């Protein structure tokens, strides 16, 4: 079963962390990725640029209109994700709990099963 574990980031919460705490998060993700690779559960993981860099695209009267993002007026934004393939939802949740963000108040770690997939997985 494939799951998307999305990481919802609150920039204000991240900014309030000490350098040590930030470094610990980075190291925690590194360890997590290594573990997923070894167990054969990682499909891919990506992190996104700051939401202030987002462009919102819409088409009106057949013309594309581009405005500065982000689209959602929210405190939290998708900062990145893990796409994994594992035994079942319980395992996906167990893995999500290993992500350092899960232990930090104000950061969200969300697990959703993949329903449809297509396209090359190999880069």
């Amino acid at each position, binding site marked *: 079963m*494939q799951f998307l574990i999305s990481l919802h980031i609150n920039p204000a919460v991240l900014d309030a962390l000490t350098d040590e705490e930030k470094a610990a998060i980075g190291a925690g993700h590194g360890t997590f990725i290594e573990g997923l690779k070894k167990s054969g*559960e990682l*499909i891919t993981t990506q992190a996104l640029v700051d939401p202030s860099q987002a462009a919102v695209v819409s088409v009106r009267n057949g013309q594309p209109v581009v405005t500065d993002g982000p689209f959602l007026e929210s405190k939290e934004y998708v900062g990145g994700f893990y796409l994994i393939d*594992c035994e079942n939802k319980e395992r996906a949740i167990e893995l999500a709990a290993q992500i350092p963000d899960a232990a930090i108040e104000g950061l969200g770690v969300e697990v959703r099963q993949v*329903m449809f997939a297509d396209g090359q997985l190999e880069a």
Partner: protein
Amino acid sequence: MTAPVIEDLLRELTPQVLGALVRRHGQFEGCEDAVQEAVLAATVQWPAQGLPDNPRGWLVTVASRRLIDQIRSDHARRERESATVTEVVPEDVPGTDDTLVLLFLCCHPALTAASQTALTLRAVGGLTTAEIARAFLVPEATMAARISRAKQRIKDAGSSFSLPDGAEREERLRVVLHVLYLIFNEGYTASSGSELHRADLARDAIRLARMVHAQLPEDGEVTGLLALMLLTHARRQARTTAAGDLVPLDEQDRTKWDRGLIDEGIKLVKASLAGPALGPYLLQAAIAATHADAATAGETNWPQVHALYLILERIAPNPMVTLNRAIALAETEGPLAGLALLSTLDSDERMAGHHRLLSVRAHLLEKTGETAAAYEHYRRAAKSTASIAEQRYLESRASRVRTSE
């Protein structure tokens, strides 16, 4: 010789060659890698240069050389002094079938089901890592890591290359059958992406089940599982429309069912039902055989289906079985009786919010004429499923009850 013929031959020979190698050298994990490399070499060389006189001997020789190269380079890495390894190519031992021993090893209880499945397909099924990765829609690197981790676990568990005895053998065989069942289902319930590769998994599972059945023809559960696969696979052409929409059993065009597979399945079931023990696979096969026996949905022997589910519920209690029994009960005693049985599942945590419970309830509510409630349940079921095909089907049922209001 064409590529598909060579492919079939390689898949058949893989477990034999691997068995011969492990018998000679031990170390399953190293042998398995060597055989995989030999098979890849054959895929390249045989179509171009023609089939060798003794394909099995060729594979054993090439795999043995790879293994010895591997041992040498490991040695060289560990201790730089000259290590002497004599090149011994194992004797070809025709007549010994190591399929079962290999299956028991691949379905080792220390592994997760996903790892058991992947390793079984590679070591016994003769599929390449790339093929398995495609079938499960994951990158090849992910699948390669999973397989190598699985082999490491087996090594750590210190397994020997032999069949376990008595009760342990019985227990391990159940795991093997479960893994084959999972492989079959993975192919059968193809719902996204490269469906073609996944349909192949159902065929691979049948091929593996045939191998086990050839070794253990007297085992009722082995026979039952093979029959269940054949009877289910027989419906594949009728199960979906050309557009990929699901067709429920009672609406399938039964002339599209594969009679050859059905006859074989029914024959297996009949022969085993007379046997000493009734297991869950055999009972499920008997239920599938009962459906296959009916020329039209209206001619289905529902009392027999219900009776078989009752026995299944008794020997292997499971909410999914009760759910299926409710469908049969609704056919024999009316939808209200079916709904009453479903309500016993409401307190079962395993079924809470499960799309199958929602969709069966929707179906029975529709039959009682409670269209508003049926609509609600179809919609909730559609939201709960992770299968696109199922979701489309449930949405279409929801629209249908709404327009019939």
